[in-house]
């Protein structure tokens, strides 16, 4: 205990000109002591920072002879500056429920500081920013990196010992020093708040970067070696992912074209050209999927080319046509009676076709299970060859499923008028756009739901805010 206070005292008493610089730096050293008894002490009895200063000063602690201080400084790892803030909230947390006399900014700090408990990966900008900040700062004798190695602490130690007798002899100087300490502490709290906010924004940026990275990786842009060593995606799959990404861009273009055309009330002839162009666009993706099924059917059938939300509803490597029809029925009013019959007939026939294909695939799976299960040691290669042969049938099923999807879209075009078809395809595009957006939102949702009690309502608010702000995205589709 005493040794930790020594740390603070040593740095805080090295001289008036260096006083206020050392208070913020001293804490990490104290709190980084292996047994963290200081932290525990704080938990046990919350005391004012000012009180600590006064206690240290008035006790006149010796600093020279304490040998445990050596390990205190030399065991400070470079990550000490990273952990300096996570330890601060412990103090603030106690103050907040107690309605402390500290300024309101502290409770804000505790809220945001709690959030930063989970983020320890980012390099601390604060020591560097502190170094460069121009307010009242004189060049400190110990810049943070030196402090980490403990080599720079010699001067304050000796300085402290020199000023110790001075502290006893001149209480006025002590009081002035205490006031300066408090001022420095306040300023450092402000700096900490800025640092925490910086951490928060960096964290959000980091999640976005991770998402982009994952997306890029899934698109095969970062294969670096053709997906042999570290790549978990085949070249066929990677190529398809890139083509699919390009197709999605084209999709946006087609959709805006459709939207403008509908709003501009073009003639049916002109609209038909645009609608037929959109159908050709869909034909293209089915063609690309056919090629991809030959090289990597697993990539298609497991839905690794889609977003997680789409994958949730995946049927045989793509959307389920009957689900699409069900969704469209509510969106396509007004329809003539004949059209309604046509749409319901389409829904029924697609359902029957889906059922048939599903049963065929199920039989394939059963047959595969039997082959793999019955492989004997002697006959292993033969059974593997048989299993491989059966697996090759997967491509046929994905092809038939895509064929079903393609035919469904073509039939929709036949049943509807040009204008209805234009609206219909716009609805389809917007629907899948929202589904994809849902995946992104889900991936970037705040994870603070892991922290319960006090911060739970805070998290809910954040979630709600996120949802509200994201609804604006839908208008883009």
């Amino acid at each position, binding site marked *: 205990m005493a040794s930790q206070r020594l740390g603070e005292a040593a740095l805080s008493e090295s001289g008036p000109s260096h006083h206020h610089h050392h208070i913020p730096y001293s804490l990490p050293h104290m709190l980084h002591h292996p047994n963290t008894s200081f932290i525990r002490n704080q938990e046990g009895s919350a005391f004012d920072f000012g009180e600590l200063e006064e206690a240290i000063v008035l006790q006149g602690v010796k600093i020279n002879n304490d040998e445990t201080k050596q390990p205190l400084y030399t065991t400070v790892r470079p990550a000490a500056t990273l952990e300096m803030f996570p330890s601060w909230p412990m103090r603030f947390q106690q103050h907040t429920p107690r309605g402390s006399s500290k300024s309101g900014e502290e409770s804000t700090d505790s809220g945001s500081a709690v959030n930063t408990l989970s983020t320890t990966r980012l390099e601390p900008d604060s020591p560097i920013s502190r170094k460069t900040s121009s307010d009242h700062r004189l060049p400190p004798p110990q810049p943070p990196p030196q402090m980490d190695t403990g080599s720079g602490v010699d001067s304050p130690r000796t300085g402290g010992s020199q000023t110790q007798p001075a502290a006893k002899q001149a209480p006025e100087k002590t009081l002035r020093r205490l006031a300066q300490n408090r001022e420095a502490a306040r300023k450092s709290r402000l700096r900490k708040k800025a640092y925490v906010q910086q951490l928060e924004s960096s964290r959000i940026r980091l999640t976005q970067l991770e998402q982009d990275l994952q997306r890029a990786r899934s698109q095969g842009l970062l294969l670096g070696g053709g997906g042999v060593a570290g790549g978990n995606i085949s070249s066929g799959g990677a190529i398809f992912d890139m083509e699919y990404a390009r197709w999605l861009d084209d999709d946006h273009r087609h959709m805006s074209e459709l939207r403008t055309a509908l709003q501009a009330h073009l003639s049916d002839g002109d609209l038909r050209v645009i609608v037929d162009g959109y159908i050709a666009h869909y034909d293209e993706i089915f063609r690309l999927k056919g090629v991809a099924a030959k090289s990597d059917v697993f990539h298609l059938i497991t839905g690794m080319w889609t977003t997680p939300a789409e994958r949730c509803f995946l049927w045989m490597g793509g959307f389920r046509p009957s689900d699409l029809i069900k969704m469209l029925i509510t969106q396509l009013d007004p329809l003539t009676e004949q059209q309604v019959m046509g749409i319901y007939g389409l829904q029924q*026939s697609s359902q029957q*076709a889906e059922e*048939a*294909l599903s049963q*065929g695939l199920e039989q394939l799976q059963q047959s595969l299970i039997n082959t793999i299960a019955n492989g004997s040691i002697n006959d292993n290669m033969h059974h593997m060859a048989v299993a491989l042969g059966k697996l090759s049938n997967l491509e046929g099923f994905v092809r038939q499923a895509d*064929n079903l999807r393609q035919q469904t879209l073509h*039939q929709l075009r036949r049943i509807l008028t040009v204008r209805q078809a234009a609206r219909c395809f716009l609805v389809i595009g917007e629907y899948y756009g929202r589904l994809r957006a849902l995946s992104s939102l889900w991936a970037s949702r705040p994870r603070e739901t892991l922290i319960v009690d006090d911060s739970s309502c805070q998290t809910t608010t954040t979630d709600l805010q996120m949802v509200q702000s994201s609804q604006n995205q839908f208008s883009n589709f």
Partner: protein
Amino acid sequence: MQYQSDSHHYCSSSVHTAVDPLERVVRLASGSAVVIFSISTCCMCHAVKSLFCGMGVNPTVYELDHHPRGKEIERVLTRLLGGGSAVPVVFIGGRLVGAMDRVMASHINGTLVPLLKKAGALWL
């Protein structure tokens, strides 16, 4: 579903006479309203059979791996389809509909059911 393990439609003499394989296929296909050429282990054949049974149709199925002339029928069908897998192949009313993709396309575009009704395989 009616499975024909041998050509019951022929008199015994035709089994030994040299019947043109194509002619044999045509004759088999004309024997019932809905004829499916299949292989017992083929899963896509199972799918097409499920499709018709699900619609309430009773197709006649020839399992070529159990048919004495299975191999040559397969060759004929491959030629008829223009390559690819010989099975499954569907004939309705004696006329070739095609492989699975053609069957599904005709079901989706609404032409399959009228065809079945005309062949007498479906009643409303």
